[in-house]
């Protein structure tokens, strides 16, 4: 299932996948796959994404 919350949170900050990936230290394709729902990130990566986007785990990853 697509993670539209992550995508919209990133878009709200006017941040590209490449920028987000660079700040977290992962590849752009990893961010793409998370947004597409094709990869389940570890809790460590989830927290890193939340910190960069200024959101909580509930905001981005809880259905």
């Amino acid at each position: 299932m697509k993670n539209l919350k992550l995508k919209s949170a990133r878009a709200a900050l006017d941040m590209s996948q490449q920028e987000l990936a660079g700040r977290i230290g992962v590849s752009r394709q990893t961010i793409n796959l998370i947004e597409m729902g094709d990869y389940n990130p570890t809790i460590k990566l989830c927290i890193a994404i939340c910190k960069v986007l200024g959101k909580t785990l509930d905001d981005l990853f809880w259905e």
Partner: protein
Amino acid sequence: MNSLEFFGLILGIFLVISYISFVISKRRGEAPPKYDERQMLVRGQAYRATFWVLVAYLCISGFFSLIAGTEWADGVTSPFIGVCLAITVFVVICIKKDAYFPVNQQPRFYIVLFGIIIPVNLATGIIRLVNESDSFFTNGALNYNVMPFIICVMFSVILATLIIRRRKDNSPNGRVEP
């Protein structure tokens, strides 16, 4: 092995050692290549697939020799083909799933490098065949003359996968942006 081939072998070994020394000295002090968690996972899966491909190759190769009653390739060529096959499987899986290059490393250098390796090996193979009027077979078994062509095929497959992946990444469907 004649004196020219021996000289070529020594020169090849010298070039490889020089290149590795150069790379090590250049990378000293730099951070090691960094793969993210998904890439590590994919690389693990690729290693597993490579292992089973190599096992299957050795079984088929041994079985064929057993049935035929003779070796189908000489003692150097047969394992060399297996190694090339395994490397190809690993690299292709990693490239397809974007886990071959570390984070923030661009594949452009490798596309150029592979683009050089392919014609060099093709030329080497053809020159060797033409000059020595040699064939691929010795006593019915594949000999080492086939090696440049095997390398050529291996890098062609890898290069093609790399180019297809790069095109896919750069296409509107591959790049999902806001």
